[in-house]
C-alpha cells in the first residue's frame, strides 16, 4: 500500500486549455480583496466559472494581503497548483507571491518597486499601476488599473469588468465610477500596447448559462432557510461566524430568531430546546466549538431532538490554524462523544451541494429525530464558486409537513398511553410538542423506556439500543444520494473523497480522461451512518482506490478500511499543510506505479 503524500507545487497544466489562475497582492487597504471579489463576480456574471481563494497569511507581516481568482472550464472547488498571472503593488509581498509562481508565469510589479529577482523562474515586468491611476484622477484606483491589465493579458473583453466597477463604487456616485472605469481601461490599453494585442494567457471561454455566485456558508444558510429553519444560535468562530451574520437579518424578516449565545455549549443547548419546542433550528461552529458542543450532541441523540450543526472545519487540535483549510473533524463528527447515539453526518461536495446537504440534514434530522451535522471546510465555507442556481421552493416542498402525533387529547406518558420514543420496530415518528393537548411527556437525557421514564432494565435497554441501530439502517436507506459516483464504464482508478476535496478529484478525473485514463470519482456524501453497500458498489472490485482528503491521519481511508475489505487497493492522498488538496496531488498518485 504505497502512501502518496502531496509535496511542493509541481508543473501543472493550469495555464493550458483548462484554466488560468490570477493573483493580486499588496498592502491591506489597497482594495485587493474587494477588487478580487468584484473581478470574480463580474467574470461569473459574464459566464465564466471563477472560484476564489483567500490566501490568508499565517502571520500578518507588514499588512500584506493577496486575493486569488481561478478560471477553469468546470469551475470545481480546487486551488490552482500555480499562478499564471500575478500583480503586485509593493515589495514585501513579492516573495510570498513568487512562491506560487513558476516558469511561464508573469509577475507585474508596480513601477518604482525595483530589484526583485524571481526565484520561481517567472517573468517579472514593471507596470505603471500607480501612475495610470493618478492620470485617471483616482490614485486609489491602482486595483482597477490592475484589473484592466489582467483583462488584456487573459483575453477577457475589458467591458465585462465595467460591471465590477459599478458593483464596487456605485454607492459613491457617478464621478467615482467614471474615474475608476477610466483607470480600468487605461490598464487594459497599456497592457495591450506593451504586451501586444494577443493575450498572454487564455481564459476558458464563457458559457451562456444561469449562475449564482456564492460561498458554501451562504449556500448552507439558504438551504437552512428553505428547509424551514427559523431559529439559529451560535458563538463567533472562524470560519463559521458569517453563517449567523447571514441568517440574523433574514430570520428577522420572516419572524425567526437568531441569537449569539455565551458559548457553544449554550448555543447547541438553545438549539435543542428550540427543536424540542418544534422549531427547526441550527447552529454553526468550527473545531474548538465543535468540541464544546459534543456534550449536547449526545443530549439531542438521547432525547431524540432534531437539530442541525454546521461544522466549518479548520485544521489542528486546540486552536489550530483558524484561517487555514483542513478536513480533520471526520472522526469527531462520526464518533465524537461518549456512548452510542444516532446521528447523521453529511458532507456536501461543492458550494451548490452545501445548499442541498443542509436542507437534507434538516429533513433527516426531523424524520429520524436525531442531530445532523453538515461537514463544511474552509475552502467550501469561505471561497466562492459560480454554480447553477439553487431552487429554494423545491427544497422547502421536499421537507414535508409535520403529521399528527397520534395521541388522544389529554393522554400522557404518566397514564401509560403515550410512548413518545416509540417501540422497537416502529417506523420513525415524532413526539408531541409542548402546546399539543395529547402526548404530554418529558424528554429524557437519562436512558429511558419508550415511555420516556428512566430505566436500567437490561431488556428494555437492549430494545432501545436495537431501535437506534434500526434507525441507522433506515437513515442509510432513505438518505438522498449517500454516495455520488461520476465516470462512465469500468474504472482503472477510483478517486474517493469527501467534502470540498471532491473538487480536486473531479478536476483530476478530467485531466486523467484527457490522457486516456478511465477514472471514477466517488464522493461519500453521507459520512455517517456509513453507507457501506453504496460505497462497496461504487469502489468496484479491482481498480486502485485513491482516498483523497485534507488531513494527515487518513481519516476517511481508515473509516473505509474499517467498513470494507479494500485494504490492498487503498492509497492515501493527503495534504495537511493548511491548504486545500490540488488536482496535481491526485494526478501524481494516480500516475504512480501501484
Amino acid at each position, binding site marked *: 500500500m504505497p502512501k502518496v503524500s502531496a509535496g511542493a507545487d509541481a508543473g501543472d497544466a493550469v495555464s493550458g486549455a483548462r484554466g488560468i489562475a490570477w493573483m493580486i497582492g499588496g498592502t491591506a487597504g489597497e482594495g485587493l480583496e474587494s477588487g478580487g471579489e468584484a473581478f470574480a463576480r463580474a467574470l*461569473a*456574471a459574464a459566464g465564466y466559472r471563477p472560484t476564489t481563494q483567500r490566501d490568508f497569511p499565517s502571520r500578518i507581516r507588514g499588512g500584506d494581503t493577496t486575493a486569488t481568482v481561478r478560471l477553469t472550464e468546470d469551475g470545481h472547488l480546487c486551488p490552482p497548483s500555480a499562478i499564471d498571472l500575478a500583480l503586485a503593488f509593493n515589495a514585501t509581498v513579492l516573495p510570498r507571491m513568487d512562491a506560487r509562481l513558476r516558469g511561464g508565469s508573469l509577475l507585474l510589479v508596480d513601477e518604482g518597486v525595483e530589484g526583485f529577482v524571481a526565484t520561481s523562474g517567472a517573468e517579472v515586468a514593471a507596470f505603471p499601476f500607480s501612475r495610470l491611476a493618478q492620470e485617471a484622477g483616482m490614485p486609489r484606483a491602482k486595483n482597477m488599473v490592475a484589473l484592466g491589465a489582467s483583462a488584456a493579458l487573459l483575453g477577457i473583453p475589458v467591458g465585462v469588468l465595467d460591471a465590477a466597477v459599478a458593483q464596487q463604487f456605485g454607492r459613491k456616485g457617478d464621478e467615482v465610477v467614471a474615474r475608476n472605469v477610466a483607470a480600468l481601461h487605461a490598464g487594459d490599453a497599456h497592457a495591450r500596447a506593451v504586451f501586444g494585442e494577443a493575450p498572454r494567457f487564455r481564459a476558458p471561454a464563457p458559457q451562456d448559462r*444561469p*449562475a*449564482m*455566485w456564492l460561498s458554501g456558508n451562504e449556500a448552507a444558510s439558504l438551504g437552512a*432557510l*428553505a*428547509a*424551514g429553519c*427559523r*431559529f439559529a*444560535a451560535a458563538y463567533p468562530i472562524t470560519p463559521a461566524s458569517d453563517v449567523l451574520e447571514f441568517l440574523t437579518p*433574514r430570520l*428577522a*424578516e*420572516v*419572524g*425567526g*430568531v437568531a*441569537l449569539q*449565545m*455565551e*458559548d457553544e*455549549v*449554550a*448555543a447547541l*443547548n*438553545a438549539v*435543542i*430546546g*428550540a*427543536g*424540542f*419546542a*418544534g*422549531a*427547526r433550528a441550527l447552529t454553526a461552529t468550527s473545531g474548538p466549538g465543535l468540541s464544546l458542543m459534543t*456534550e*449536547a450532541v449526545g443530549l439531542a441523540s438521547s*432525547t431524540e431532538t432534531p437539530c442541525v450543526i454546521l461544522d466549518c472545519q479548520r485544521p489542528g487540535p486546540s486552536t489550530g490554524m483558524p484561517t487555514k483549510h483542513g478536513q480533520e473533524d471526520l472522526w469527531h463528527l462520526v464518533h465524537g462523544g461518549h456512548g452510542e447515539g444516532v446521528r447523521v453526518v453529511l458532507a456536501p461536495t461543492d458550494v451548490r451541494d452545501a445548499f442541498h446537504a443542509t436542507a437534507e440534514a*434538516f429533513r433527516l434530522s426531523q424524520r429520524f429525530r436525531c442531530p445532523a451535522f453538515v461537514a463544511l471546510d474552509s475552502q467550501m465555507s469561505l471561497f466562492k464558486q*459560480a454554480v447553477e*442556481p*439553487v431552487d*429554494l*421552493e423545491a427544497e422547502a*416542498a421536499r*421537507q414535508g*409537513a*409535520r403529521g399528527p402525533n397520534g395521541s388522544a387529547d389529554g393522554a400522557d406518558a*404518566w397514564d401509560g398511553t403515550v410512548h413518545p420514543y416509540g417501540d422497537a420496530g416502529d417506523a420513525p415518528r415524532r413526539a*408531541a410538542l*409542548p*402546546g399539543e393537548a395529547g402526548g*404530554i411527556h*418529558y*424528554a*429524557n437525557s437519562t436512558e429511558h423506556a419508550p415511555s420516556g421514564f*428512566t430505566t436500567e432494565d437490561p431488556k428494555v435497554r437492549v430494545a432501545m439500543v436495537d431501535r437506534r441501530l434500526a434507525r441507522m439502517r433506515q437513515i442509510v436507506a432513505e438518505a438522498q444520494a449517500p454516495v455520488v459516483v461520476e465516470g462512465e464504464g469500468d474504472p482503472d482508478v477510483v478517486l474517493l473523497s469527501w467534502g470540498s476535496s471532491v473538487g480536486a478529484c473531479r478536476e483530476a478525473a478530467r485531466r486523467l480522461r484527457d490522457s486516456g485514463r478511465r477514472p471514477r470519482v466517488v464522493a461519500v456524501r453521507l459520512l455517517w451512518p456509513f453507507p457501506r453497500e453504496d460505497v462497496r458498489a461504487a469502489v468496484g472490485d479491482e481498480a486502485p482506490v485513491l482516498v483523497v482528503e485534507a488531513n494527515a491521519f487518513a481519516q476517511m481511508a481508515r473509516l473505509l478500511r474499517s467498513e470494507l475489505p479494500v485494504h490492498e487497493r487503498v492509497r492515501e492522498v493527503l495534504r495537511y499543510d493548511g491548504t486545500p488538496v490540488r488536482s496535481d496531488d491526485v494526478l501524481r498518485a494516480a500516475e504512480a506505479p501501484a
Partner: protein
Amino acid sequence: MSQHKEYQGKDPNWCPGCGDFGVLRAMQTAAADLGLARKDTVLVSGIGCSGNITAYFRTYGFHGIHGRALPAATGIKLANPDLTVLVAGGDGDGFGIGLGHFMHAARRNIDVTYIVMDNQVYGLTKGQTSPTTPATMSTKASPMGPMADPVRPLELALAGGATFVAQAFSGDMKQLVALLKEGVRHRGFSLINVQSPCVTYNELNTYAFFREHTYDLAKRGHDAMDLEAAHRVARDAEGVPTGVLYRADRPTMQDHLPRAEGMPGLVASGGDPAAAYAAAADRFHGWADAFRVR
C-alpha cells in the same frame, strides 16, 4: 380550580425528609392555583437529585444535561413564547457547572422562572462540596472544606440583571407557594432560590438551622424596588432572608426581537416549511436573486 394532584407525576425517589419534596409540592400547588394548562407548561431540569423532578411534575418536561437547563429553556421559550417555562435545578447545576448560563439568562431577562433547590451539597454523587457549601463544612472529598467562600446566588442574580429575585425555605410552604406564583406571573427572568435541606449529606444546613436563621423580608419593611437595599439583604452573612429581594420591570429578550407581521411562528414554520416558504416567497426570491449573477 384545578388541584395540585393534577400535576403529580411519578413518586419521587428522593431520600425521606428531603427538602425537595416541599419544593415539588409547592410547585404543584402554585401550578394549580395559577391554573397552568399542563399542555402549555414545560419544566426544564438539569442533573442531580433536583434534575429528576421532571418525572414527578406532570407537564411537558425536558430533562437535559448538567448545568445546561437555562440555555435549553431559552430555546424553548423563544421558539414558543406561549408556553409557561419553568426551570428547576440544584446549586451545583445552577451555580457550579451552569453559573455562566445563569448570569447570561438573567442578563437576557428571558421570561422563565428558575427554581433552585439549594442544599449546599452534591447529593446524587454522595456528598461532595457544592458552590454554596459553607467554608466551615468538610466532606469526604474535601476534608479541609471547600477552601473557598460560597457563591452568593442572590447577589449574582442582582448583578446579572435578574428582574425578580426571591429566596424561600422549603419548610415554609405558604411563603414558597406565594413566591412561586409571583415568579411565574412576573414577566422576565425570575430566580427563586429555595433553601432545601439535604437530610443525608448536610448536617449544618438543617430544617432547624433554617427555622432559626430565616427571616421574612416582608415583615421587615424591605422595599423590593430598591436595588441597593436588595444588595444589602443579599449580602447578609448572619441570617437567611426570605421573600422578594428585588423586582423590576425591564424588557425581556423577546421584546427586543423584531416583529415580522403575517409570518408563521417558529413552530408552525418547522411543521410546514413549504407553507412557511409560501408566506415569505418574495423574500426568499430576493435572497436567492441577490446571488444570481446571470
